[in-house]
């Protein structure tokens, strides 16, 4: 099982269990993702892809089932350890980016590194490497609110990579992008994949799942995976 980056076993999420407004966005989802591959979870809105991705990214805890990332069971971890795992091993690119607008690009990228107790020089070093890789060197000191949509997205990607993670999760990354930026984004993903990253993207954008870098497509509907 060394080959597997991710394995989920009958993962289910139930909100308001037992009550009248009970909602089950994800039901009995089991999947396996090999290392170094890129997988797209495809499905209309409301199909549970974001919830599934959030559970894999340790943002939400599953109600039932197991999630194993890189050989480590993460679904039943207490909050502190789940946080640590999230911080050290996972990179998440949010649909709305969720960058801090008042901070500079550099500060946003370095933000996940503060809990590590790294010195400022080291942090800056790592951040600068990523900036260069994603053509953002000249924007390092700019405040995020002054950037264009594409630049913000690249900042979000850099931030998700700065912790040296190997599993990258992206939730509807192209939702706010035009065709060119979508192509740019997928280009970056391809580059990362070639460097050995495992990529999991949730999207309903045809441009995404029709791209050549995609190894596998998983379809979801109504919280379940379609066979």
């Amino acid at each position: 099982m060394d080959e597997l980056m991710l394995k989920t076993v009958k993962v289910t999420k139930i909100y308001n269990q037992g009550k009248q407004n009970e909602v089950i966005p994800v039901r009995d989802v089991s999947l396996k993702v090999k290392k170094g591959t890129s997988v797209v979870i495809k499905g209309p809105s409301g199909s549970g892809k974001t919830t599934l991705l959030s559970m894999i990214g340790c943002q939400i805890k599953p109600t039932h089932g197991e999630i194993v990332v890189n050989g480590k069971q993460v679904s039943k971890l207490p909050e502190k350890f789940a946080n640590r795992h999230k911080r050290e091993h996972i990179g998440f690119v949010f649909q709305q980016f969720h960058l801090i607008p008042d901070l500079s690009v550099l500060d946003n990228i370095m933000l996940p590194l503060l809990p590590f107790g790294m010195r400022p020089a080291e942090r800056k070093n790592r951040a600068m490497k990523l900036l260069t890789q994603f053509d953002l060197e000249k924007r390092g000191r700019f405040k995020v609110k002054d950037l264009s949509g594409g630049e913000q997205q690249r900042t979000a990607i850099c931030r998700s990579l700065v912790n040296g993670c190997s599993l990258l999760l992206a939730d509807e990354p192209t939702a706010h992008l035009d065709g060119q930026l979508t192509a740019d984004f997928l280009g970056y993903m391809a580059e990362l994949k070639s460097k050995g990253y495992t990529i999991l993207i949730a999207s309903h954008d045809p441009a995404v799942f029709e791209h050549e870098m995609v190894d596998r497509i998983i379809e979801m509907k109504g919280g379940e995976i379609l066979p």
Partner: protein
Amino acid sequence: MDKPTTSGNWLERQRNIVDYSLQGLFRRRTKNSLILVMYVLLIFVVSSVLFITGSLTVELFSTAEELPDITVQKMIGGRQVTIQEYYFKAISEIPGVEDVEPRVWGYFYLEELQANFTIYGMDLTLLEEGDYERIVNWNAARKNLEMQPEFRMIIGEGVSRLLKEIQMEDAFLFFQPNWDAAIPFEIIGTFKSETQLQSNDLMVMQTEGARKVLELKEGDFTDLVVYVPNPEETEMIALKIRRYYPELRTVTRAQIESTYTSAFNWKGGFVLSSMLVVIFAFLVLIWDKASGLSPAEKKEIGIMKAIGWDTEMILAVKFWESFIISIIAAVLGIVLSYFYIYWLHAPGLKEIFIGWSTLYPSFELVPDIDIKFLLLIVTVTVIPYSAMAVFPSWKAAITDTDYILRNN
């Protein structure tokens, strides 16, 4: 990319947290500067009031032991009038009384300068020997005077400064419109500045001279002082004096000391009103903190949680933000207040104590600081302020991240 060194050095992590807190403070620069200024001001006012009243009380008590045991006044119609000679004998015969001394003293109002002087009559030769000699800056002329005793006086520094303005620093002319002639007094010395707080407005002169200036007729005195060697007997003797002569009023040293204690205490109008204002303002400051975070701040917390920060770290950041401001403000407020009172001599504040008088001391006060009280001020302001700042952040930090990010 390679992995960073995980969960590094604890000290470095704390420094990172402090760095981030400070950065946060600078990002909201205007608001935080205003809060800092307000906070410093509040602490400044509290310390200043405490310092000045503390120092004045110390000055009052520095000499309280030397006060006369009982002061006796005669009252008619609820007001003080002159007391006559025949009371002395009766009072001095009360067992336990060592000595009874009549006093001639009062006030002289100088219209030109709108100044009220305190006139005190005593035997000036007493001041020329022993310890007393060293509390006066004697004027050079005193050695060769052959004038009558009643024409000499020793004045306080405030009086001396005032008289210099009208070029009367060597001799002073007392005059009232209803007098036949002015009475000249030679000024033979000035009380040294160490006694300034007590002697500032005083003109100490020979008793006969005082009598003339105060227009007291022979046989009349302003009041009496009674010396009682055994302190246990003072109350009883005072009671006896009042019983024998209901028209007399006694003021014992204990009563004077009790007046001294309460002179500047918290029930006094000045202290109470300034404290109430400060407390109220501080409550407003805390309420602002406790009433919650702005949507931007809530979102920031949501983002930090989403990228893997522990709740404790987030709270630590928020705590440091408030703690830094409050501790700097508290210490700065107290230190500034110290320099304001004891180096600058409280300009602005001392005017409240001086009121309408034209003669006033230089307010060179001796500092009287109770460290416990200062620590209390610091604790009572810093802790609630920092705690109140953490509370809404804690609420945000334990709320579902998704919920925060979606709703802000």
